[in-house]
């Protein structure tokens, strides 16, 4: 219980510290709402494309948040005051990951409500819209876990580069061979459903893809915790 409380505090603190980028993301979703209000039914495909784009921005921001979270804290040396308290490095890392997940959930909720308001009246299925939001949250959390894993020992640029490669490689293999590869870091599988969704054929993701993404995020979190526990946090990573 004590651990959960500490993790929650770190997560909320992370969201508070990242409030401006999160706010910008939320405002971009409100921009979609404005676009919906100004358009007529003939533009509905354009609105759906914007909606998909925003979903992908959410994933990109999660990589950015995950990849820079530890780096920023180490560089500013604020990490010392936090880890100088009765908190384990694993709890600290869990808090950061939960913070990114909270930011992704806030974004997806906003996107989901805006989609319900704008897309559903134009004929998009309410059920599938929220299923797509599930896919976005899963993709965000998994991508952030990969970025967080690399950011324990690399700077944000290297971390983002390797995150892209790590997520892209299984995606390319899944695209070429399908099957088993669809479940390995399944950003491709989650993204495909999201990007292929249309008013006529909303589509769903295969049953085990979202649980597989969550399990892999947990494995990455454990690996990141193990590495983070070994390194010197008072030394810059540049």
């Amino acid at each position, binding site marked *: 219980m004590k651990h959960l409380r500490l993790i929650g*505090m770190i997560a909320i603190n992370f969201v508070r510290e990242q409030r401006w980028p999160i706010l910008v993301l939320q405002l971009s979703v409100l921009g979609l709402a404005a676009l919906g209000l100004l358009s007529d039914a003939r533009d509905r495909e354009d609105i759906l494309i914007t909606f998909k784009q925003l979903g992908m921005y959410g994933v990109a921001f999660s990589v950015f948040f995950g990849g820079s979270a530890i780096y920023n804290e180490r560089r*500013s040396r604020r990490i010392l005051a936090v*880890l100088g308290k009765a908190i384990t490095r694993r709890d600290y890392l869990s808090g950061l990951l939960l913070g990114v997940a909270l930011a992704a959930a806030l974004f997806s909720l906003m996107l989901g409500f805006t989609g319900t308001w704008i897309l559903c009246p134009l004929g998009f299925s309410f059920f599938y819209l929220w299923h797509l939001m599930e896919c976005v949250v899963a993709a965000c959390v998994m991508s952030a876990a990969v970025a967080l894993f690399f950011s324990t020992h690399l700077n944000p640029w290297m971390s983002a580069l390797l995150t892209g490669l790590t997520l892209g490689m299984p995606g390319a293999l899944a695209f070429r061979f399908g099957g088993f590869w669809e479940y390995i870091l399944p950003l491709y599988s989650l993204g495909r459903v999201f990007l292929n969704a249309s008013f006529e054929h909303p589509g769903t993701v295969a049953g085990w893809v979202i649980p597989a993404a969550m399990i892999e995020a947990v494995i990455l979190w454990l690996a990141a915790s193990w590495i983070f526990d070994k390194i010197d*946090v008072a030394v810059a990573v540049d």
Partner: protein
Amino acid sequence: MPAVLEFQDIIKDYRALFRRRTVRALDHFTLQVEEGEIFGFLGPNGAGKTTAIHLAMGFVRPTKGRGLMFGKRFGHAATRCRVGFLAENVALYHRSAENLVRFYGALNGLHGETLSRRTAEALDTVSLLHESNRNVAKFSRGMLQRIGLAQAIVHDPDLLILDEPTSALDPLARYAVREMLLDWRRRGKTIFLSSHLLSEVELVCDRIAVLNLGRVVRLGRPSDLLESREHFEVIASGIPMDGFPGAEKQPDGRIRFLASAAAQRAMIERIWTMGGEIVSVSPHKRSLEDLFLELTGSPGSERGSTQEAS
């Protein structure tokens, strides 16, 4: 007295990724801090003081050796509940002073009424209670150091580890911190104080360690360290100045000079032979600055043991 903090033959090397150069920050570093004392930790820049503190807090891991804090290995999270830490360069989140201290107090397990009371007490101790609603981003450097101190003491720790706690403070605030440290010692708390302010260390510390090139080069009580056994100060009257090298005349007409321990007896006999009178012979007391310079070399030189990795 049980040891609160123990460094046991610790080596700490820093090596950058993809680089061959290794910097040895601590070299077979051994030290014990006992319960209830104010321990002064001195050394020039690059001597390894901050590395030793970061090891104790679990921020960095030793290359070799081990350390214990309250009997637990360095880095044991639950033990840090009993420790208050103030870093050399205070870096804190930007929010109101009260919310900031509450946040750090809560991280150490305080909550509810206790957290509120302890937050107010900590802010009051560092004279920032009237600024509790102000964002720390707008604080001066001295105020930041004080709020840093507040977050270190909010949970009433048994051990305070302070890295340069008064470097940005004005004399009045520095005096207040010194009084606070003495009060904490009276309450049985232990304080590990790293500082460049030698006069301050001399005033409050029970024991001092001087660190150079990652090793402890001198350890002991200030009175023992500052009293020289090699030189004695002789004050005499009724003798001419020119017979004693380095002698100086005091306002009351007496002659004062330093004699080495080996020459002390001969000098006394010489004064008697000349018909003079010996007023006092006492061990020569150096200043802490003299001792510091003697142990760490020429003033102003930057240190750090750099070795090429094999």
